[in-house]
């Protein structure tokens, strides 16, 4: 581009192409990721917390629940991955709320960029962060003795399923992000909802050990369904059933929460 074209054109373009929107999305995703460079705490959040969970659960609960840390890891690592994924989706709402309250969102909206790119860029960046922590979890698990039962294909399938589910769950996070008044409240919501949600599943403990009334919830809990799908893909056991159920959950979440989130965002700004 020459310096002459740097000045604002006399006749501004009428509309944007999809290609331009994708380019804006990539630029805004870069923005969310380059933040990590200046805020190393975020990288610690993404890395240390999941690793700590694997170590604590494996060595503290492993013996009591499965008889040995090694057997427990096989059962619990997919569950820990799911729990981590649920917590990770909250970063979308946290970041969005931060942009809304600090005025960054308004600055972006006053630019001639695709209307959907600020949200898409953020979700793309969060997906990259999500993939990083999943890779880290599996890596640490393998150092501790976790073995892939279905090879690279199973691993690929697990990644794809998790990311698809996270994209759907991100809409819940977006909705929370536009509804609450400050970023910290997104985190409070995360703890208050995601902790009980992930613990009333078979992510960490087999369903049979729980009381009957709880079992009926645990069996339909999306965390259980997704954890079972990951066990099938990464270790062994049924794949098709839990994968289909996970996708149904993802679709249901997206259908309900995407319109609510978009409506909430329109009302907020």
């Amino acid at each position, binding site marked *: *581009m020459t310096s002459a074209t*740097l*000045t*604002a*054109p006399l006749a*501004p*373009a*009428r*509309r*944007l192409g999809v290609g*331009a929107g994708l380019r*804006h999305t990539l*630029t*805004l995703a*870069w*923005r969310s990721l*380059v*933040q990590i460079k*200046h*805020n190393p705490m975020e990288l610690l959040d993404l890395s240390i917390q999941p690793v700590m969970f694997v170590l604590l659960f494996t060595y503290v609960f492993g013996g009591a629940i499965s008889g040995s840390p090694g057997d427990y890891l096989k059962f619990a690592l997919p569950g820990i991955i799911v729990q981590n994924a649920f917590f990770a989706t909250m970063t979308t709402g946290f970041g969005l709320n931060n*942009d809304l309250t*600090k*005025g*960054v969102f*308004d*600055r*972006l*909206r*006053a*630019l*001639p*960029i695709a209307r959907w790119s600020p949200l898409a860029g953020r979700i793309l960046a969060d997906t990259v962060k999500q993939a990083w922590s999943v890779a880290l979890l599996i890596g640490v698990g393998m150092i501790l003795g976790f073995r892939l039962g279905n090879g690279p294909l199973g691993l690929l399938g697990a990644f794809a399923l998790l990311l698809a589910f996270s994209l759907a769950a991100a809409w819940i996070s977006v909705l929370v992000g536009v509804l609450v008044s400050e970023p910290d409240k997104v985190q409070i919501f995360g703890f208050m909802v995601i902790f009980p949600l992930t613990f009333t599943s078979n992510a960490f403990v087999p369903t049979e050990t729980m009381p009957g009334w709880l079992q009926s919830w645990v069996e339909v809990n999306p965390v259980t369904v997704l954890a079972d799908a990951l066990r099938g893909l990464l270790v062994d056991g049924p794949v098709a059933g839990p994968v289909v159920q996970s996708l149904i959950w993802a679709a249901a979440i997206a259908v309900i929460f995407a319109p609510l989130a978009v409506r909430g965002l329109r009302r907020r*700004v």
Partner: protein
Amino acid sequence: MDYAIRAEGLVRRFGATTALAGVDLAVPTGTVFGLLGPNGAGKTTAVRVLATLLRADEGRATVGGYDVVRDAHQVRQLIGLTGQYASVDETLTGTENLLLIGRLLGLSRADSRARAGQLLTDFQLTDAGDRAAKTYSGGMRRRLDLAASLVGRPQVLFLDEPTTGLDPRSRNELWDIVRSLVADGVTVLLTTQYLEEADQLAGEIAVVDHGRVIAQGTPEELKAKTGGQSLAVRPADVVDLPTVVSIVGAVAGVAPEVAQNTVTVPVNDQRVMPAVVRRLDEAGIVVAELALRGSSLDEVFLSLTGHRAEDDPAAANLEGSVA
């Protein structure tokens, strides 16, 4: 005349609150137009409507001839926005913030970098370019905000309370930047609750209160409109101050104000001044200063709105709940 910004009958309600109650504006191209009013007057809402961030419930507006609703995308290519509610990303460095905007505006990597470097130099931020914006002082932060809105060389710039909370030196620096932008042909819409700021920068001012434009004109016209002049007398010797107060008060028929050894009284009658001079002379008082002044914008504001600027806590709360 060629207008960069036109608005007709803008109305915007937030629940039971009416933030804009029918605002008309016409800003000639290449000028600074001041929207002056207290917190909660509707200034920010007006800017948000004109900058395509918010839709008005009624009325219409154009920027650079483009409708802010129908042609929002074109409007966004012409404008820059800096203000309380449009801000840089604090976690990025100054350079990264400017690069981000350049890339979003479609500049190549190299051009974005060149533009960012140039703006950092212009705004004396080069040394801070590689530091996260959250480490910046208030003045640096505002300069970066302004630089970010200039990356695309906007023809129309919205400055929403650009100097609120700045120290006098940073404020003067920012004013100089605005003046040089206008010299380059940029049209500026400035909102402020500082009367001095509007007086310093704006060629034309609209006084806004409770969502309406209650007066409009050049700073001089506004001052003249309220008619009042004031007579100021400062005795050479402070011991004469009580005598001066009684003389001025007696002639003007109003109790004068005293500040910094200067006695001030509003006057509407041209005969007051010669009468005061005569009485002071008879009393043998030497004066260091004796002047007839046009009223300040502060007084204009008070007479127009019935309250002083910057002291409307109820309205401030209202705006807080709206935002």
